[in-house]
């Protein structure tokens, strides 16, 4: 049996540091919002001429007075991602860019994707994204509150907040773009983290009924170990699926799958080290669940 409980303190300190660091990053560095949430224009183009590169494209576009232009390679040597604010909301901007590029580099470009999000829509999308995440956290809170005693709920929610905050913190640190699909990833992480915690908690609850003489400190360890192979197998298969999306699913799904990969790793870790140590710290005992059972 692995002694997970020996490291509760160390990992609790680590997690606290991670959360503080993430909050600092989120407050001072902030998130790199994509055009979904910031507004602006995105163009994905493919060039058939390999002589064209990022800097020549950037120079060309900078002449067009588009405001802040970002040009990046997108997956391979031929695909580029161009983003700019489009502050003046020029109507035919795409047409202008196309003709300008054709003039400078010859007719070598295929506009594969164009997205244009106005300021009103982007602030609405941001708002509904924040609402979606808040609602999902609230719903999980209600669910776990109905299902378990408050000590368990507290542990699960703490683990949940940890996963969401640290994943976002990592996105801030690595300057990865936050777009609509990241919101979907965060919501799925919320579901996954909860799922993982609940399975261990179910076992803790069962063992609390079974053994009245084992302290919660050891009882959580027994429960973690009993569910360990399930935790690992499910995490591994989920990660296998996600890694496959990350490596083969194309550029567009990269951010989404990366967020999910982080989330699954954090979720697995937090259900062992955060959720369970909360039970220990709140001195959960057989009485906790018996009291609750009497009430019902």
């Amino acid at each position, binding site marked *: 049996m692995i002694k997970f409980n020996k490291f509760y303190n160390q990992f609790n300190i680590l997690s606290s540091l991670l959360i503080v660091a993430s909050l600092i990053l989120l407050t001072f560095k902030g998130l790199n919002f994509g055009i979904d949430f910031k507004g602006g224009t995105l163009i994905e183009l493919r060039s058939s001429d390999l002589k064209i590169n990022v800097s020549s494209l950037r120079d060309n576009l900078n002449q067009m007075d588009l405001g802040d232009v970002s040009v990046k390679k997108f997956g391979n040597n031929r695909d580029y991602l161009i983003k700019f604010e489009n502050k003046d909301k020029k109507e035919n901007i795409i047409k202008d860019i196309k003709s300008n590029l054709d003039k400078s580099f010859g007719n070598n470009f295929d506009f594969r*994707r164009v997205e244009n999000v106005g300021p009103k829509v982007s602030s609405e999308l941001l708002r509904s994204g924040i609402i979606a995440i808040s609602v*999902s956290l609230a719903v999980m809170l209600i669910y776990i509150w109905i299902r378990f005693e408050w000590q368990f709920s507290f542990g699960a929610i703490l683990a949940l907040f940890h996963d969401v905050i640290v994943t976002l913190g990592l996105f801030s640190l690595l300057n990865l773009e936050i777009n*609509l699909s990241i919101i979907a990833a965060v919501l799925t992480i919320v579901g996954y983290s909860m799922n993982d915690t609940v399975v261990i908690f179910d076992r803790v609850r069962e063992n609390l009924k079974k053994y009245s003489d084992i302290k919660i400190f050891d009882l959580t360890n027994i429960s973690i170990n009993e569910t360990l192979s399930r935790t690992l197998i499910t995490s591994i298969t989920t990660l296998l699926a996600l890694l496959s999306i990350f490596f083969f*699913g194309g550029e567009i799904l990269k951010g989404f799958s990366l967020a999910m990969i982080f989330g699954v790793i954090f979720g697995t870790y937090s259900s062992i080290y955060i959720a369970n140590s909360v039970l220990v710290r709140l001195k959960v005992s057989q009485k906790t669940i018996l009291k609750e059972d009497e009430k019902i």
Partner: protein
Amino acid sequence: MLYFSKLRIIFVSFICLFFIFIASNNLLSTDKKLIDKKINLGLDLQGGSYLLLEIDNTPVIEQKLQNATSLIRTYFKEKGIRIGNLTLSGKKISFTVENQFKQNVKNEFENENSEINPYYPRFKSHQFDLTVLENLFELSFSKQGIIELKNSSQDQALEIVRRRIDEIGTNEPNILKRGNDRVLVELPGLDDPMRIKSLLGKTANLTFRFVSNNNQDSFGVEKLKYENGLDEDFVSKRIILSGENLLDAQPRMDNQTNETVVSFTLDRVGAKRFGKATSSNIGRKLAIILDGKIISAPVIRDTIASGSGQISGGFTFQSATDLSLLLRSGALPAPLNIIEERTVGPDLGQDSINAGMIALIIGFALVIIFIFIKYKTFGLITNITLIINLLILLGILTLFEATLTLPGIAGIILTVGMAVDANVLIFERIKEELKNEKNNIIAFDSGYIKSRTAILDANITTLLAAIILFFMGSGPIKGFSVTLGVGIFTTLFSVYFIARLLTSIYVTKNKDKEALI
């Protein structure tokens, strides 16, 4: 628990075969199909354009207030009630009333069946809110008044947008209302929305008005620019003809000048008015104005009684075609602004499909190999279940003709990764039970029973996340929540019916074997 009745086995097999049959529909391309259903591909996979248009209602509000102002003027004149200083400024109509008429006027506006302030019987709210400050009366749109105005301009805009898009003839466009001042347009298969965007961006408000450079016109004049942006002319505010009077408009080649023109036919009322106006104004310039700009202002040489004519203005064939199309489909009630646009080219869509499929196949293979190595025979059972699970998932998506998006494919791959969870929970539990229980059948039974709460809990949490995402998410993200959510149900079905059936068959045959799992 492990026992399955014959009827149940038949039922489970039937459901599996039914959905597999439906899922197979997506692969067949023959026309001879029993069920004509297929999974729809989202715009991000088949390529196409998504446009969100917002109606700018300011001019409509202005127009309606102007109408109301003149209505109020005539209404009280007829009633013999004197009101003064009737003005329209900003979004308010104001006028003064002498003390003796105050109550009277107030009643006219606040009466439940008021003629000049309607809506009350229907909405329990009037069209206008009235505020009285001593002798000053002020009218502004009520909440309900604004809602009604927006609804009606949205209805009109939707109709005009549909007509314009139908005229262009793209395949299976999707035109929907969003909120009460937006119209959503989805155009599958369109990789260059430039033309549609410019057609939808025009109000196409056409008027024929006389040029009055001597500045004397009882209707007032206004200065308008020509299309070229350089020249301008004073034009009477009196409208001789408007776009509403047009029956038809077509691009044509003028044989004499070799120029592309737009020829139009007027309805009866229009033809009559046009004939009268031309006969009494020979020698004057008639300006043809589109959206506040003069296209051309030809001099009238003769009476035009035929009810048809032509507009010239240095058109190319394309611009003449577009103008005819706009005139045929009618003017928008208010300008439309494109506030969100997402266009994906068909080759990027195809690349996304390919990448998604490769990721699905590789992810699936990795999971299957891992599970087989881990559980051997029971791994095989899990894997068979997983395959059937996937087919049922596709079958359900086909049956409901769901829209599959790129994130939706990601949802399917994720379902594959998470679907084994329930089986793993059960098998791990059975392993534990077998430590204390020698009878295989009893151990398997209690393994299934004892793992049930954990499985339900685990799936409910994911389902809750998917449901929230479905209601909050938009476009492609919605596709993700659909596959993830449906995936949970198919997973539970396949675990509790298919996997358990296969397990029960195997365990019953090998009930005396040791170290079964």
